[in-house]
């Protein structure tokens, strides 16, 4: 019987060693948030220029899909514009994945309208009423008699989840809302639709009008000082803590370097202090 136990132990050890042997490599796969995507791409471009032997690929499938990719070991870095949920952490635990949160930048979710829209400011309460269908026409807000075209991010998006938490506080978006699968798509829809309203990351307000929220404009300053009410951190999650000196470690920590902060600012987001 001792012999069989030893055999099982040996098999087990071999299995674990085989698993461990998979670690390492100079390729980094990044997947997740369309909001964090531009930062990840800029980081990747910068890092690969310095280290041509390292390959970094960046995909933008949404925060939820980024989390799934990390849990399924399909990526090394999950970019997310919201913190990982308890259910995702549980799935990660079940898969033997340890999600480690790395904050790379800050962001404000801008409420955007067509440049011709005379609206200037909305309160959080008004925004919630628009998105739940209570306010349906711009005239109810002192604007023209025009039905509001509501544009939201798709439900797999971290931007959506942040908006749902910080603005809607759990209330449901009206079924009349349209859903777009990226910040860029929302911006485009708002640019081409005079009566539209949408919400996007601070880096996506070019060509549209960003409203003040509770009389606070969305800007780097108001996000940093905490006055802008719909602000959030942006994350890159890894499976465990990357070892110092590895490309993954350097890539994840770029946001804390002077060059990384410059990249974040140039991309239109708010760099860490």
């Amino acid at each position, binding site marked *: 019987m001792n012999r069989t136990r030893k055999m099982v132990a040996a*098999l087990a050890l071999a299995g674990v060693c085989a*698993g461990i042997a998979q*670690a390492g490599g100079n390729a980094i796969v990044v997947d997740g948030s369309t909001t964090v995507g531009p930062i990840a791409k800029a980081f990747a471009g910068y890092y690969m220029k310095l280290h041509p032997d390292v390959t970094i690929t960046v995909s933008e499938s949404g925060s939820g899909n980024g989390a799934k990719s990390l849990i399924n070991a399909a990526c090394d870095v999950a970019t997310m514009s919201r913190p990982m949920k308890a259910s995702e952490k549980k799935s990660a635990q079940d898969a033997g994945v340890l999600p480690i949160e790395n904050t790379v930048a800050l962001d404000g979710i801008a409420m955007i309208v*067509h440049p011709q829209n005379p609206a200037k400011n909305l309160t959080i309460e008004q925004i919630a009423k628009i998105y739940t269908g209570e306010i349906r026409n711009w005239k109810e807000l002192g604007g023209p008699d025009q039905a509001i075209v509501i544009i939201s991010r798709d439900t797999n998006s971290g931007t959506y989840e942040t908006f749902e938490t910080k603005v809607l506080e759990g209330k449901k978006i009206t079924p009349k809302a349209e859903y777009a699968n990226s910040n*860029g798509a929302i911006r485009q829809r708002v640019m081409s639709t*005079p009566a539209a309203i949408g919400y996007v990351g601070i880096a996506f307000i070019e*060509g549209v009008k960003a409203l003040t929220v509770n009389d606070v404009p969305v800007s780097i300053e108001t996000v940093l000082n905490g006055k802008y009410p719909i602000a959030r951190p942006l994350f890159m999650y890894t499976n465990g803590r990357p070892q110092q000196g590895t490309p993954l470690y350097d890539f994840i920590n770029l946001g804390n370097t002077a060059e990384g902060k410059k990249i974040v600012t140039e991309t239109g987001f708010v760099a860490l202090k």
Partner: protein
Amino acid sequence: MTMRWRMGALAWIAAGGVSLAQTAPSNEQLVQSFRALLSSGSDTQAVIRAVSDAVRQALQQGPMSSAQAQEQLSAPAMMAMPAAAAPAITPPKTWADSIVVKGDVRYRTEFRQDHGGNNYDPNGNAEYDRLRVRFGLEAQLNDNVKAVVRLATDSIGTGGKGTGGDPQSGNQDLNNGASKKPIFLDLGYIDWNLFGPANSELHLLAGKMNNPFITLNDDTVWDPDTTPEGVALKGQLDLSPATVYGNAGYLIVNNQNVVQTAKVGGYVANDQIILYGVQGAVKYEFCPEVALTLGISDYYFNNIKGAAANNFDIMNKLSATGSTTFYGNDMDKVPAGSITNSCFPYGFDVIQPFAVLDMYPTVCGRVVPVSLFAEGTRNVLANYLSDGYMYGLTLGKAKNPQTAEVGASYCRLQRNSTLGMWTDSDRWGGGTDGAGWKMYAKYMFLKNLMGSITYFNDRKGIQGAGGGTGYDRWQFDLTASF
């Protein structure tokens, strides 16, 4: 690259067209919008649609002066402008999008040596090839409600209560000249998330469900294949870095209790035997790499004392009326008219404290999950052979391709420590009144294709003379999940 080039060309053509028709401000705006469109990652079709709409608009309006352009930027003009087509707008979901198909197929080759069993062959092993197939659907009815249905293979039992599937297992022996195998309802329940999708949740489950209670990697009370029936609440409260779990169940064991004897307090017919289960646990995360979970469960089986076991002996484990054990539990032989029934001499109120220490050390640059777990079991309504315990460890996690997991645990259950009918059916052949080790290794060869080896080194009938008889079992599994 090709798509990018096409989008660029489209933008250039559109911008040219617009410049013929409009003054500088509108033109610039449109060019900006094209740029934005290109950077948005929109698909080609969306780009074409948006560009053609913009061109059509501009041509319809004709050339305009700066004053006219300014006028168009005013609110009334805004009202008059038609909405353009929506680029990259997610299409509405259909009913098919809300349904997920799930299932698995497990092929098992098993060798058993039951040294005290009737089929014990000292020169060889009892060998079985077995199949377990499960196939189910999960339908998300709305944001908060899900309906789950799953069918599974199972052995047909024809015990005292007629025909049904084994409550502990979905295995089907490959036998009887390649006969077609029976399929049973394995799951069928409604999952209503009362608090909606959030880190703190409360679910109401109703039907035949997955075990609503937290169980360890191995468990003293529950077989992992047992799917209890009734109503349950599953809740968790996020108090980071702690999470509080609370679960409760009203689970039907049997809807009719035929015999209760004078010996245990009088005859009462037609009472349901119900498991009232409550469980509380706290998981505290000291850091991402270390978490400790402490919890306690109380499983109270109402009306089971004095109940005749043949009420739910689907698998015909009572070899004859008047058996002295049922899945390891003690039985009283009670005459009832012209027959003798085997009845539970004790009630079951099983208290089960448990602890799990999860750690995630990094070895050679890779996270290796380590879990240490232990639990105790005591049936406070039995005054004889009422204790049990289990402890063990797992290393690694076989979930993603080319990942491995190993584990070992030791379990010891006295006869009346818990309801034997629902305990792990593999350890010492199932039930209580046994002790021994389980060791396993799993390896995920490819995505959703796993191989595993499990070895049980047990003794069964440990309350018998000489501490029982040996029981060895090897299982070689190949499992494909979808």
